[in-house]
């Protein structure tokens, strides 16, 4: 550590469902970001929030003393303006802290409405001039994910030196990504999905065709080139847990985790690891042993393999070996909660799929409880102590929080 850091940057987690909202809170996020309707970069997500969810999300965040930011960062057409206005108005009314925007239309609508703006990474801000330009409209700027840490540090240093303020008059804040998926193209400038499948990444409909294996063939000779990895366009995921001290040292004010389309257990695990790492940096005991433990834990949830992204100036070539996740564990759906006995604090679950054994690691995910991991030291099946439960059985276990049918139990197994 080159110098002591008094104030830690804000840890910002992705939220795509009420389950992951709870997971982010449990993991120790300082703030969360989420999208509603179709005007955000995860428009295809199945469980997308609607305008009607703004009140509840904002309320939960306030109760837990965390900030919430709303993504409204797709390309905007004329026919989107009314919906955008409606979303911004409602967000303002419900006390959402800011809107993450890249289209000038949204920036302008927010200005008219008096809604604070964060400039999305979709705007690819990569230099101080752009930062100064956007500071006239925003208080936080998310830098392009393709910068090196040195470039980030220079931008942050210059903001301090030149006393650049955001539109509110406060010091302008810089936000950078610290974990999650990376694109092979500069964010907001990839048209591959649009050209091949008419599904615009910049309208939140990316089909991720860069994640597939490809062959390279010489059309003249029909000869296939030998490449060491067929996934020639799919970079590994960004992971900065082992360089987080350097990341903090850049002076970035907000550290963002990618993954609004990912599950609640991903949000919980990633947020928790980075929260612990940040606290360790503050306390001066950010050790190699801890880094190894966090890396192992991060590997248990969705990932395409890790590298430090573009931050250390490494060349592209860190390609994933697989089309999807190479997580070391996976969760298998077992069943849902059917009853809760509040007096004795016992939850009952109906096994709807597969089987579960005594000693298994389980995970319960729900919109109110977030993510809870347990070890099944004792297993009660249909009221009696047993070693295994199968489809149709009812299992009971001690659980301190009230559960409902929307709480699901999963078995965690090695992948």
């Amino acid at each position, binding site marked *: 550590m080159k110098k002591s850091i008094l104030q830690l940057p804000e840890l910002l987690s992705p939220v795509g469902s009420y389950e992951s909202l709870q997971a982010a809170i449990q993991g120790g996020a300082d703030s969360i970001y989420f999208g509603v*309707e*179709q*005007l955000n970069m995860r*428009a*295809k997500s199945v469980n997308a929030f609607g305008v009607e969810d703004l009140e509840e999300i904002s309320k939960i965040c306030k109760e837990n003393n965390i900030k919430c930011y709303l993504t409204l960062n797709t390309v905007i*057409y004329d*026919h*989107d*303006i*009314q*919906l*955008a206005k409606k979303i911004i108005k409602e967000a303002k009314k419900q006390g959402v802290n800011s809107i993450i925007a890249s289209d000038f239309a949204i920036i302008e609508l927010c200005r008219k409405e008096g809604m604070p703006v964060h400039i999305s990474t979709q705007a690819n801000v990569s230099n101080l001039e752009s930062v100064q330009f956007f500071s006239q409209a925003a208080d936080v700027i998310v830098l392009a994910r393709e910068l090196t840490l040195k470039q980030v540090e220079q931008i942050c240093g210059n903001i301090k030196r030149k006393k650049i303020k955001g539109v509110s008059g406060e010091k302008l804040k810089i936000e950078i990504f610290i974990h999650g998926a990376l694109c092979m193209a500069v964010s907001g400038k990839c048209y591959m999905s649009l050209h091949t*499948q*008419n*599904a*615009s990444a910049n*309208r*939140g*409909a990316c*089909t991720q065709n860069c994640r597939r294996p490809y062959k390279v063939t010489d059309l003249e000779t029909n000869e296939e080139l030998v490449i060491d990895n067929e996934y020639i366009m799919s970079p590994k995921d960004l992971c900065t847990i082992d360089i987080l001290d350097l990341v903090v040292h850049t002076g970035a004010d907000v550290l963002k985790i990618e993954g609004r389309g990912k599950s609640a257990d991903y949000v919980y695990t990633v947020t928790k690891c980075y929260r612990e790492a940040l606290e360790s940096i503050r306390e001066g005991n950010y050790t190699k042993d801890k880094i190894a433990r966090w890396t192992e834990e991060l590997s248990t949830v969705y990932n395409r393999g890790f590298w430090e992204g573009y931050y250390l100036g490494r060349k592209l070539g860190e390609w994933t070996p697989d089309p999807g996740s190479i997580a070391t564990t996976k969760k298998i759906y077992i069943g849902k909660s059917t009853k809760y006995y509040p007096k004795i604090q016992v939850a009952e679950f109906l096994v709807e799929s597969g089987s579960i054994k005594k000693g298994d690691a389980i995970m319960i995910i729900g919109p109110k409880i977030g993510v809870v991991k347990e070890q099944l030291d004792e297993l009660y099946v249909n009221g009696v102590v047993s070693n295994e439960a199968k489809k149709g059985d009812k299992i009971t276990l001690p659980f301190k929080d009230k559960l409902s049918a929307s709480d699901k139990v999963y078995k965690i197994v090695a992948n």
Partner: protein
Amino acid sequence: MPRIIHYRGKCIGCNICYEMQADMWRMSKKDGKATLLKAKVKKDIYMLEINNEQVELSKRTANACPVKIIKVL
């Protein structure tokens, strides 16, 4: 009779259906999603009977939809 089914709730408002069949689709200014004109509506699912001549182009439109929520049956 052939028909178009539009699962409107999942529309991301990309504009392609309107570009391909401007006489049959409109982009709603209210919520930014595409609306299948003159269709019968049931629980946000829009259904419109079409004639045989309209099938081929409608199928191409359905195929162009990035979220695959247009079906031609």
